[in-house]
């Protein structure tokens, strides 16, 4: 359970997030929507302790984030950030295993447990057989899945994903969301996902939070939040709403 109470984040004097309050209960997936610059990434960086809030509090399972060490935070919260490149030849397996940092001693080698988690995460992300491939030889989408696999291999219970589907093809977008939702439901994990795809949000979110200019503009189930009025308010775009005939969820079509 992640509890966010009235947090305000400042860059210098500028308030980029204002009075944000919400709960992320175990087992749930929250999708974060908002225009570019609305503060979505800033919120994710605040939730894992990178940006300490100027006011308000963040609690993980009843414990204040401020009181936890880097290692303790990383054990419960993991982040899939927007992509990174490296100039060193790292294999996929080495990359995924590096995410197990908090589980070992500084000197030590990986245990069987580490290897098992890494292999399982790779299999979950459709990456079996990629173990010895080099990261800088992969396509953007493949790399993004490896980054997700590294996060999953940590076994952290809270997943924060910053546009995890940006480079992915259609099937892997669905795979990514299904995988995250599965983990939340079966292993009492929870996730916050940033995306720009309103229909993916509608399909997979238990709850949607819309941000506008650093404030929460709307919050609730996909049916409650995805209204023409809210979308116009946040994205300045007119939309038509109907029902996806297959999943019976709200379907959003932009009108240009």
């Amino acid at each position, binding site marked *: 359970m992640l509890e966010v109470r009235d947090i305000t984040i400042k860059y210098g004097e500028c308030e980029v997030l204002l009075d944000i309050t919400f709960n992320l209960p175990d087992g749930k997936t929250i999708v974060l929507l908002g225009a570019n610059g609305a503060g979505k990434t800033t919120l994710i960086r605040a939730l*894992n302790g*990178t940006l300490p809030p100027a006011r308000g509090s963040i609690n993980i399972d009843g414990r204040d984030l401020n009181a936890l060490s*880097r*290692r303790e*935070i*990383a*054990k419960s919260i*993991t*982040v899939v*950030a927007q992509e*990174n490149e*490296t*100039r*060193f*030849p*790292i*294999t996929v397996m*080495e*990359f995924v295993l*590096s*995410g197990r*940092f*908090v589980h*070992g001693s*500084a*000197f*030590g*080698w990986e245990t069987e447990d580490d290897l098992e988690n890494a292999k399982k995460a790779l299999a979950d992300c459709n990456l079996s057989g990629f173990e010895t491939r080099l990261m800088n030889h992969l396509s953007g989408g493949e790399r993004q899945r490896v980054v997700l696999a590294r996060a999953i291999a*940590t076994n952290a219970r809270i997943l924060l994903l910053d546009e995890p589907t940006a480079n992915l093809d259609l099937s892997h977008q669905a795979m990514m969301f299904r995988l995250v939702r599965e983990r939340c439901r079966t292993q009492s994990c929870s996730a916050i996902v940033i995306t720009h795809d309103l229909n993916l949000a509608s399909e997979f979110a238990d709850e949607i939070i819309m941000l506008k200019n650093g404030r929460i503009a709307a919050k609730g189930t996909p049916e409650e939040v995805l209204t023409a009025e809210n979308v116009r308010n946040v994205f300045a775009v007119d939309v038509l709403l109907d029902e996806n005939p297959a999943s019976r969820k709200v379907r959003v079509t932009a009108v240009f």
Partner: protein
Amino acid sequence: MQRNRAMLLGGGLAVLLLAVLAAAAMLGAERLPIFDLNEQQRSILFDIRLPRILLGACVGASLAAAGAGLQSLLRNPLAEPYLLGVSNGAALGTMLAFVFFGAFEWSRPVLAFAGAGVATLAVYRLAKSREGMNVERLVLSGVIITTFLSSVIVMMTTLLDAAKLRSFTFWLLGDLSQATLNGVYIAFAAAAIGTVILTSQARALNLMMVGERDAFDFGVEVGRVRMLVFGAASLVVGASVAASGSVGYVGLIVPHLVRLAVGSDNRLVVPFSAVAGAIFVVAADTIARTAIAPRELPVGAITALIGAPLFIYLLRRK
């Protein structure tokens, strides 16, 4: 990298190190037999050649391990103590000690360490901008610091008399001929402590070489790791430079070759670089001693001759 293969490679490197040390002890202006040394040969071996060879091994291990650590920390395969100006910082510190505190032998490594540390922080500050740190910016910052410190060093040399000046010029280029047993003790202690510290941070460095933010997200205390790696690198570079001047490019060549063999896992790259660096510098110094015997070349000239083309290759390969 499979662990068995890593063990095999480690063992191979250790054997190679022993072989190179033995060969270096026998080769030279005066070729020594393996057994039955006479009084004079004994003196050459134990008083002159062995201190020099052992110092070369410590210096090589130090520079290569420091290079490997700095490269991962700064996410830049071109980072190297000599090219970043760290060696020149240490050289200036050594000179200050030599000119002003000549009576205290210990002041040299101490001020060299301080000089290396200041130069490291200066380069880091200069290279880091709001947008982060790219490869070219770091290399340029290194050039600026290096040339600035070089001119200060040149101005300092005007304080020296002609006889000292010649040995100083040699020393600046990287020269092991002034090796003393005392120098070996200091260099060995620094190399051992520095390599252990750097290796202990290897897992954190594996994350850092992908990105500082990544490392932070996955539980690395980034600031602490940075200080430890900068501190350890300054320690080993300070001790090496105080003893043997600025031997260049070792920290570039050796980690690069080690990565070709074992991949990028710093738990292997850092310690293997230390051993391979020892082999490399002892071999290079043996060439420096024998190529135009009885005259000698500074070992730094040999390493730069190999290193500069490799640097160009690495810079062009994106």
